[in-house]
């Protein structure tokens, strides 16, 4: 639980020596509480005060970082945890849950390699961002075979630059797998009451994070305490429920305990396994995991038609609710427009901009795209809020200097704001105002037929 300024003040030397650059210890304490300065700025704090302050500054949900070995050029890192709220409107959700594809060590190696390669190559564009999965999980299947597990782990590592989760119930098998990717900071699944000592030893030896698995919260808390006592701090929780109702309950309880009660034994990210669900429920389970507090999500199936909507949902839930994603206002050139090509006008809300730009670009049609500063709002929202009106559009036309770039002064406005055309004709008297279709999908046809 973060300490208040006064609580911090009590731990400082109270000499007001000013070495930290502030006039008083109290002022410094306030800056620390507001996270505007670091404790290191005061050269005089004692060891005990340092320890207490460090403990209090631990995030309620521990930050876990996974990454492939430094030997792997261009290896991708994944951060999970560090969350501070139960509801995204309270502030924002911070680290998107890592999404992993699981393979099984009893599958033919060629089919594993093919799937890994497909995921590795997969990247889908959504409002200008390239979205991808984050890594792979390899699961040891019965009858357990350490050599086979290790060879599959190596094969996946050879084909991927992303973090890995190793899943095996047995420490000897796990050890073989970890050895195969020595240097990785991986995630080990997992420790139970029965095997935690051996698994904790492996986690330490291989600098990896460890999943604690137990089907009650008491059991989980007990297990994380025991593992921590063995010197492993990077933990992840598997409450083992694979049913939607039970996982929602458990994950909510864990998040609440961590945030509201500062309950350290459960202050870790959670791992969810929607891939264990029936094939047609996997997407729904993953959707719940995204919205309701998972830090790692293990999928069984790789199908773009499922992965794309899940990646979009994850972006949506994890956007900062205070500021809509925006693009810079101004004049954009699409497909090398000539002075005779039309000028299309829209807002600087990313979703709006990209739905228009993608259509025009995809159709190979040249155009000038004028982005009005509508404070990041969509066409109709901006219009209703007075941020996308004739005045702002006229101003954008003037500021952009587009009049000097085109010889035919044609301005196409979105169909949804057809009502603006009268005012625009007045404000931009030497422009021909054209009302476009309502939806961007219909723009290419409109441009070909009507313009």
């Amino acid at each position, binding site marked *: 639980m973060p300490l208040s300024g006064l609580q911090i003040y009590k731990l400082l030397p109270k000499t007001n020596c000013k070495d930290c650059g502030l006039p008083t210890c109290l002022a410094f304490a306030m800056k620390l509480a507001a996270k505007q300065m670091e404790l290191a700025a005061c050269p005089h704090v004692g060891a005990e005060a340092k320890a207490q302050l460090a403990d209090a500054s631990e995030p309620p949900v521990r930050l876990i970082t996974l990454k492939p070995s430094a030997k792997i050029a261009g290896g991708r890192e994944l951060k999970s945890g560090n969350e501070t709220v139960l509801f*995204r409107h309270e502030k924002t959700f911070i680290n998107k849950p890592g999404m992993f594809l699981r393979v099984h060590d009893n599958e033919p190696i060629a089919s594993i390699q093919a799937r890994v390669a497909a995921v590795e190559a997969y990247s889908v564009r959504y409002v200008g961002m390239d979205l991808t999965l984050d890594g792979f999980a390899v699961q040891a299947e019965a009858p357990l075979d350490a050599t086979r597990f290790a060879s599959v782990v190596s094969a996946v590592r050879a084909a991927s630059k992303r973090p890995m989760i190793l899943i095996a119930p047995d420490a000897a098998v796990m050890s073989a797998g970890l050895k195969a990717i020595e240097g990785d900071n991986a995630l080990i699944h997992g420790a139970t009451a029965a095997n935690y000592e051996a698994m904790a030893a492996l986690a330490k030896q291989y600098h990896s994070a460890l999943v604690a698995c137990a089907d009650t919260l008491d059991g989980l808390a007990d297990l994380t305490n025991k593992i921590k006592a063995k010197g492993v701090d990077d933990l992840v929780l598997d409450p083992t429920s694979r049913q939607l*109702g039970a996982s*929602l309950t458990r994950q909510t309880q864990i998040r609440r305990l961590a945030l509201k009660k500062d309950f350290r034994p459960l202050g870790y990210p959670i791992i969810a396994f929607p891939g264990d669900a029936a094939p047609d429920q996997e*997407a*729904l389970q993953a959707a719940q995991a995204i919205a309701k507090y998972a830090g790692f999500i293990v999928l069984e199936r790789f199908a*773009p038609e499922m992965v*794309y909507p899940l990646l979009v949902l994850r972006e949506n*839930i994890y956007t900062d609710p205070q500021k809509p994603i925006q693009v810079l206002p101004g004049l954009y050139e699409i497909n090398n427009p000539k002075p005779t090509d039309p000028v299309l006008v829209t807002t600087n809300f990313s979703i709006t901009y990209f739905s228009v730009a993608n259509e025009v670009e995809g159709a190979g049609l040249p155009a000038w795209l004028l982005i009005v500063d509508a404070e990041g709002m969509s066409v109709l929202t901006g219009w209703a809020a007075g941020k996308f009106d004739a005045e702002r559009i006229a101003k954008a036309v003037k500021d952009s200097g587009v009049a000097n770039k085109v010889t035919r002064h044609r301005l196409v406005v979105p169909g949804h704001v057809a009502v603006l055309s009268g005012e625009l004709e007045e404000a931009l008297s030497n422009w021909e105002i054209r009302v476009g279709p309502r939806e961007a999908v219909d723009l290419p046809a409109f441009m070909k037929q009507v313009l």
Partner: protein
Amino acid sequence: MPQVEIPKDSWSGSVTTVTLGATAADGGTRSHTITVGGHKALPFMHFEQKMAHRPLIALEIKDHRPDDWSPLLLDLWGDAANDPASWAKAAESAGADALVLWLSQNGTDGKPTTPQAAVASTKAVLQASGLPLLVFAPGQAELDNALLVPISEATTGERLVLGICEDKNYRTIAATAMANGHLISTRTPMDVNLAKQLNILVRDMGIPPDRILMDPTTGGLGYGIEYGYSVMERLRLAALQGDGNTQSPMIVTPGAEAWKTKEAKVGHDVPATWGEWLERAINWETLTAMALVESGADIIVLRHPESMRRLRAAIDELMSVPA
């Protein structure tokens, strides 16, 4: 072993219980009624309070074949989509809990839908199916009033839900609903305060809380769902904290929003990374709906029966946790 003390929220407020439809015993013709709302805790937190009523899934049908719908939906419904009665039957046998008859702005002749036609469609649906019915007008304040008032009068006592009641036309719709024993669905654009204000306005007219549903408006996945999601979470929290103007059960239309998106609507000339069309479209609809179920939706209006089947299986699981 340590005993973890599970934090339980205790709330002073609750969501109003609302019953849709009336059977013969209550002056209607529905084969059964459905009750939503009544919650005393956040969705599916059965360990605090057993959830009173599960979210219900309604399928959307139209008064005539909607040419702007995705071909995936039109192919699926086939000839049933040609007239509202056979569409209603098809939707009922597909397993819908309730039906939403969403009237078109224009008839097949391209002219605005007439009150006579709207009444006829509504009656045809009531005759074809015993499910509780919601009737939504096209969303043009004046036309909506012209259509909903005669529908309301022609179906007295059915406990239909009349929508969409907005700030521009709430007076007419609330008045006719009260006079004829119906319910209303209010809609405001994704804003907690606007939702509260409209609730105050309709209640000032004297319509009892157990006849009000509220639609906080949602955006489709990838097109603004996060705003709707958070507004719903905030409304539900306010309801539980005791704010009487946020306690109506929430109705949302993820079907209409999801099927508006290019991802669901279009199958050709889209990036290969979008995957197979039908499954993508179903996922677009179910994921939009699932997020809203988690944030407190009580009535979910969908368009595709397969989405309904999957979402219902998910709700079954969410409901089946022992308290």
